[in-house]
């Protein structure tokens, strides 16, 4: 029996772009484009099985072996530190992890800085590297509202175009690091499906214009 490679794709716009790369790389699965309630899509001939999962869950599926490979944002990899291989930068879904605050905000180093974020680990490590005392306020969404309502001094969040910030009188104060989508692999999966994974990775690299 042919070994099928399980691929976790992030739901949403990024996932569609990612699937297009897999398709162009020679691993299509036409049924994925049909509008129905199916959750798993398989192309036996190519030896791939795709499934859509919440972007922040891709790493969990891969780390625990439910998926052999998947595509996850660097932000998720840095925040959750899954024990996986990070094989390749797809150079899509590009944005940056940044510190933002109200335009007129001035940092007062004599006070503890209140930081609202979904990315507690990234924020803590960033400020620890600066030796700055902070108070993390972990939020699950609508982070931008925190400094407007005085809940926090700054936010640490993903910034793509900056439009939302601008419309709310906020601006980027510091860029922490650039973010993009990465191909990740389960360690055991990589050992036992090495050829399949490297072939798919090499073909994807060609599509993304990278050197193999």
């Amino acid at each position: 029996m042919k070994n099928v490679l399980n691929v976790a794709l992030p739901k949403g716009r990024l996932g569609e772009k990612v699937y297009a790369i897999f398709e162009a790389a020679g691993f299509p699965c036409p049924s994925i484009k049909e509008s129905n309630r199916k959750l798993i899509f398989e192309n036996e001939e190519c030896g791939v099985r795709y499934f859509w999962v919440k972007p922040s869950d891709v790493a969990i599926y891969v780390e625990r072996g439910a998926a052999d490979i998947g595509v996850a944002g660097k932000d998720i990899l840095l925040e959750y530190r899954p024990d996986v291989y990070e094989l390749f930068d797809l150079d899509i879904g590009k944005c940056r992890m940044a510190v933002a605050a109200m335009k007129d905000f001035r940092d007062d180093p004599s006070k503890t800085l209140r930081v609202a974020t979904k990315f507690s680990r990234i924020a803590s490590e960033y400020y620890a590297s600066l030796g700055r005392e902070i108070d993390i306020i972990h939020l699950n969404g609508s982070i931008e509202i925190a400094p407007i309502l005085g809940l926090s001094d700054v936010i640490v969040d993903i910034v793509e175009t900056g439009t939302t910030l601008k419309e709310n009188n906020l601006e980027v104060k510091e860029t922490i690091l650039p973010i993009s989508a990465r191909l990740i692999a389960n360690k055991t999966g990589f050992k036992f499906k090495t050829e399949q994974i490297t072939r798919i990775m090499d073909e994807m690299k060609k599509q993304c214009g990278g050197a193999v």
Partner: protein
Amino acid sequence: MNTRFSATYEEKVTFALRDLYANHGYSRYKMSRFEEYDLYVRNKDFLISDGVITFTDTNGKLMALKPDVTLSIIKSGKDSAGAVQKVYYDENVYRVSSGSHGYKEIMQVGLECIGDVDDYCLYETLLLAAKSLYLISDQSVLDLSHLGFITAVFDGLNVPAELRARALSLIAEKNLHELMALCKDAGLNEEQARKLKKLITLYGTPDTVLPKLKETFEGVADLSALTKLEELIALFDEETKKLLRIDFSVINDIHYYNGIVFKGFVKDVPTGVLSGGQYDRLLEKLGRKSGAIGFAVYLDALERMEVSAKYDVDVLLIYEKGESLSSIKLWAQELMSRGQSVQVQKEVPEKLRYKKLMKLEEGRMILLEERT
């Protein structure tokens, strides 16, 4: 000992591993469940998980439920020139589970070789690690790496000291794109970066990888660590050698480990099931002058490998009338020695659920069917 019908899969593996280590002259090391907390505080980074369950003993001392076995073994031993302490253990340890964030009792089996560790000790430990994996499943892989060789490559390519820890973690992730960016930061030229890249891109069987590594790093880095690894691998028999892979993504904490490090994987178990290496630096930190190598098998990872409910036996071995009795006995024993349950029959019984159907024909064993 046939434990098939009364033991769980982990217990069966434990028994088989204990037999394996005892047969190689390792003595069983039994210890208390408790240890002074101070030992773990001083070596916090050596522990796999941060959390330690503590309690105050009746004499007021802060104690801990063991999160690790190696530290206790080292602590209890003494340096003695030329002597090697060879022990195995089968203990429960208490750690925070990364998934549930709660404490978990984990069955762990492993061995330690502490003292005047020579090349034979290194070979024997690697062999026992490979055999341990083979006992768990014939579809397993033992990844070998050598921190001494990686350091030699870093030295040869002039990778700045402050970037080495980052480079190591990128090699561990097989993160080629960020390693290349780091090469730029480190001021490495294209040729140097191309060579460093090989620590990620070259992996596979020793026979394919070692010659390529030698060719790449000849005249660039000190190859003595690689030669040592090659010598040790050459001692393996062909069957066991099939499990070995060279893969530099195996990187344990360099503050404790040095030399050979390794990690074992079993098909369909998402995490590594075996981890080990030479940890002379840990001994140094604990004031010992000896060398050490050892490994642990994480039995909790095998929980989902339970197959006994699905099959009555692992192997149904059938034979033709006229097959020699000694040949039947030999093959049945061989299969059992791999930890598989075997039923020997002339015909296939109607309702028997077996995983593999094997036939003995003129002294040779043929696989007729394998069910997944």
